[in-house]
C-alpha cells in the first residue's frame, strides 16, 4: 500500500516536471491571444501571422482565437495569470485599467525606433497614457451618416451640410412617411455615437475630451446645449420607433426596405447593407453635418490595437511582431482583407467607395475620438449609454438623467 502510494507520488512529480518542461518549450514561440473570430478579421490575422513567419522563419507563432464577448472577460484572467506574448485590445480609455494595473508593457521604444510617431501619427494620442505608448494600432474605421441616395433624390433632398439642412431633411422625410434615422439601442452603445457627434459638433473635440475624462459636470450648460439639439430629433420622433427592442443589425431591414433613410454608424455596417441588396448608387455616405459654425470637425474612428502583456515570456519577438505589423505594406494588406482603414499614413489608399470617402474624411479630420465607451472609463460609459437610451425613449426625463450621470461622474473620477 505504502509502496504504491510512493509510486503514485513519483508519477505526479514526473508529470509536473513534464508540464514545466513543456512550459519552457513555449518560450521559443510567440503566443497571440485575439478575439478576431469573425471571418474577415480572422483571415486578416492569418495573413498577418503568415507574413511575419515568412519574414522571420526562426519564430513560430501560435494564435489563440476567442469569441468577442468571452474575450472581454477572459483578458483580465490571462493578463494576470498565464499571459500570452501579444493580445489585442482597444485604444483610448479602454486600455487604461490594464495600463494602470501595470499589465501592459511600455512599447514607446518600438514607436521611436520604427519612426511610428510620424507614420502612425493620427492614432498616437489615443495610444498614449502617462506620456508613454502602450501598444500598436493596426486598423480603424470611420463613423458617419449612411443614407439612401435614391430616397433623397426622389424627395429632392440635397445632402445636408448644416444642422438646419438636416432638420429640414428630416421633416421632409417624416412628412413622406419615411423615418429619418434608423437605430437599434437594445445594446446601448449605439447611442454613444449620437452623443459623441452631437457633442463634438456643438462644443468641439476639446470639450468632448474634457467631458469624457471627467473634467466637466454633466449638468453643465454646454451639455444641456447638446441635448437641446438632440431634442430636435427625439421630440418629433425622428428615430425608428421601438428602437430599444432592436440590436443595430435588427434596425438594418428598416433602412434597406426604405422605411428609414439615414443611419449614423461605423463603416462595418456597409457590408451587411450591401449583402441585403443595396447598390452603391442607392447607398451614400456623408460626414456628420456642421452644427456650431466654424468649429473644426472631429470624427469618431475607433482603433483596434495589439499590446504586449507585462508578464509576456517572449517580449523580444513580440516587439519584432509589433514592428512588422506597423509597416505600411502589412497594414495595407491586412486592412484590404478587413475592409477597414490602415492607420499607417504611408499605406496604400483603399479602392472601396466608402473606405475612400472615410479615408479622405479622416485624413482631414481635426482630431479623432475613439467612441464614447472607449474615451470614457468603463463605469461612466455604461451609465452614460444607459442614460442616453433612456433619454431617447423619454426625452422628458432629461433633467433627472443628467443629474444621475453627474452623480456617477463624481464617483467615477474621484
Amino acid at each position, binding site marked *: 500500500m505504502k509502496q504504491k502510494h510512493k509510486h503514485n507520488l513519483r508519477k505526479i512529480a514526473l508529470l509536473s516536471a513534464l508540464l514545466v518542461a513543456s512550459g519552457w518549450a513555449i518560450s521559443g514561440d510567440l503566443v497571440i491571444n485575439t478575439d478576431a473570430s469573425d471571418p474577415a478579421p480572422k483571415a486578416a490575422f492569418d495573413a498577418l501571422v503568415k507574413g511575419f513567419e515568412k519574414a522571420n522563419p526562426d519564430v513560430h507563432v501560435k494564435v489563440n482565437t476567442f469569441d468577442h*464577448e468571452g474575450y*472581454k*472577460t477572459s483578458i*483580465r484572467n490571462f*493578463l*494576470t495569470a498565464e499571459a500570452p506574448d501579444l493580445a489585442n485590445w482597444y485604444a483610448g480609455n479602454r486600455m487604461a*485599467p*490594464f495600463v*494602470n*494595473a*501595470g*499589465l501592459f508593457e511600455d512599447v514607446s521604444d518600438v514607436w521611436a525606433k520604427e519612426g511610428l510617431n510620424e507614420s502612425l501619427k493620427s492614432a498616437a494620442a489615443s495610444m498614449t497614457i502617462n506620456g508613454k505608448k502602450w501598444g500598436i494600432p493596426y486598423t480603424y474605421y470611420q463613423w458617419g451618416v449612411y443614407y439612401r441616395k435614391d430616397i433623397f433624390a426622389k424627395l429632392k433632398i440635397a445632402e445636408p451640410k448644416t444642422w438646419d439642412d438636416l432638420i429640414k431633411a428630416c421633416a421632409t422625410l417624416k412628412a413622406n412617411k419615411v423615418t429619418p434615422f434608423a437605430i437599434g*439601442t*437594445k*445594446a*446601448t452603445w449605439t447611442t454613444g455615437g449620437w452623443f459623441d457627434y452631437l457633442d463634438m459638433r456643438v462644443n468641439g473635440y476639446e470639450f468632448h475630451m474634457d467631458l469624457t475624462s471627467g473634467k466637466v459636470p454633466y449638468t453643465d450648460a454646454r451639455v444641456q446645449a447638446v441635448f437641446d439639439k438632440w431634442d430636435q430629433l427625439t421630440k418629433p420622433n425622428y428615430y425608428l*420607433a*421601438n*428602437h*430599444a*427592442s*432592436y440590436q443595430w443589425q435588427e434596425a438594418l*431591414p*428598416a433602412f434597406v426596405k426604405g422605411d428609414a433613410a439615414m443611419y449614423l454608424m461605423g463603416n462595418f455596417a456597409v457590408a451587411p447593407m450591401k449583402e441585403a441588396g443595396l447598390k452603391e448608387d442607392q447607398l451614400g455616405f456623408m460626414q456628420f453635418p456642421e452644427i456650431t459654425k466654424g468649429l473644426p470637425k472631429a470624427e469618431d474612428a475607433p482603433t483596434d490595437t495589439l499590446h504586449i502583456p507585462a508578464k509576456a515570456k517572449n517580449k523580444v519577438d513580440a516587439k519584432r511582431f509589433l514592428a512588422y505589423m506597423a509597416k505600411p505594406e502589412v497594414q495595407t494588406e491586412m486592412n484590404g482583407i478587413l475592409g477597414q482603414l490602415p492607420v499607417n499614413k504611408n499605406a496604400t489608399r483603399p479602392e472601396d467607395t466608402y473606405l475612400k470617402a472615410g479615408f479622405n474624411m479622416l485624413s482631414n479630420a481635426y482630431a479623432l475620438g475613439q467612441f464614447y*465607451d472607449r474615451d470614457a472609463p*468603463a*463605469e461612466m*460609459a*455604461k451609465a452614460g449609454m*444607459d*442614460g442616453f*437610451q*433612456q433619454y431617447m*425613449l423619454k426625452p422628458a426625463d432629461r433633467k433627472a438623467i443628467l443629474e*444621475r450621470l453627474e452623480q456617477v461622474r463624481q*464617483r467615477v473620477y474621484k
Partner: protein
Amino acid sequence: MNRLESFADHAPTHPVPATTWWSRHQMRLVPWLFLSPALAMFLLYVIAPIFQSIAISFYDWDGLGAAKYIGLDNYRELLHDPDFFTALKNNVIWFFGFLLALPLGLGLALALNQQMFGIRLAKSLFFFPFVISQVVIGLVFSWFYDPSNGLLLHVLGWLGMDPVAVLSDENLVTYGIVVAGLYPQTAYCMILYLTGLNNLRPDLIEAARLEGAKGWTMLYHIVLPQLRPATFIAVVVTIIGSLRSFDMISIMTQGGPYGQSRVLAYYMYEQALSEYGYRMGYGTAIATVLFLLMLVYIVYVLFRVYQQEKESD
C-alpha cells in the same frame, strides 16, 4: 496444566479491549474519512469563496490593481443606488410571478391525468419546454415580442389593439421576461404534480366519493393534501429558479431598457464581470445582499426538511 487452565478462567469472556487509539475511535472516524474528500472540496469551492467574496465587498477593487479597504462604503452606496432598488424590486416580481408556475402546472397536470389513447404523447409534448435550453426559449420569446413583426403584434392587431413593445417598455419588460421564464417552469411543475397524482391512494378517493365529495372539495381536501410532498419540491425548485434568473434576462434584454429589467444577479454580473464592469467590490456587495436574502429561504427549507425527517423517523 491445571494452573494454566485456572489462569484461563480468569480471562475476560468478551473480546480483548482494543488498545490502539485508532481501533478505539475507528467507528466514529471512518464516516468522516470517507466524507473528507467531498468536505474538502466543498470547503474549498463553496464555503471559502463565500467568505472571500464577503471580504472583497469591503474593498474598492477593479479586479486587476491594488484593492483599497473602504469598510462599509459599498453597502452605503447600495442604499442610495436607484439601480439596486430597481433590481431588488424586479427580484420580488420574479419571486411572486414565478410562483404562478405552481397553479398552472397543477392545472395542466390535472387536465392531462386521464386514461385515454395518446395521452403519453400529450404529456411528453407538454413537458417539452423544459427540455429546450433557456437560451432558445429566450430567443423565441424575444421574436414573439418583436414589435415590428412578432406574433404578439399580429395577435394584438386581430384584436384591434395597438402594438406594444414589451421588451422596451420599462413597466412591462420584467413581466414579459417572467412569462417567458414561466413557460419551462410550468412544464417542470406539471411533471412533479403528474408523478404525485400517480401516487394518490385510490381507497381515499373512493371513500371521499362515497361521502359525496367532488369538484373543488375533492381537490382541496383530498387530492391536495396528498400532493404536499410534490408541492414542497415544486415550491423549492421554483423559488430557487426565480432567484437565479439570469440567462433569460441576458438573452432577451441585457438588463435594458436602461437597466429596468435587471435583477440582483444580473446587476452583480454587470458591475463586476461584464464588458463595462470593473467594480469587484461593489459587485460582491450586491452578491452578499443576494446571498443573505437566499440564506433566509435556504434556512427555512432546511428546517422543513429536518422536521419532515424527524416526523418520518
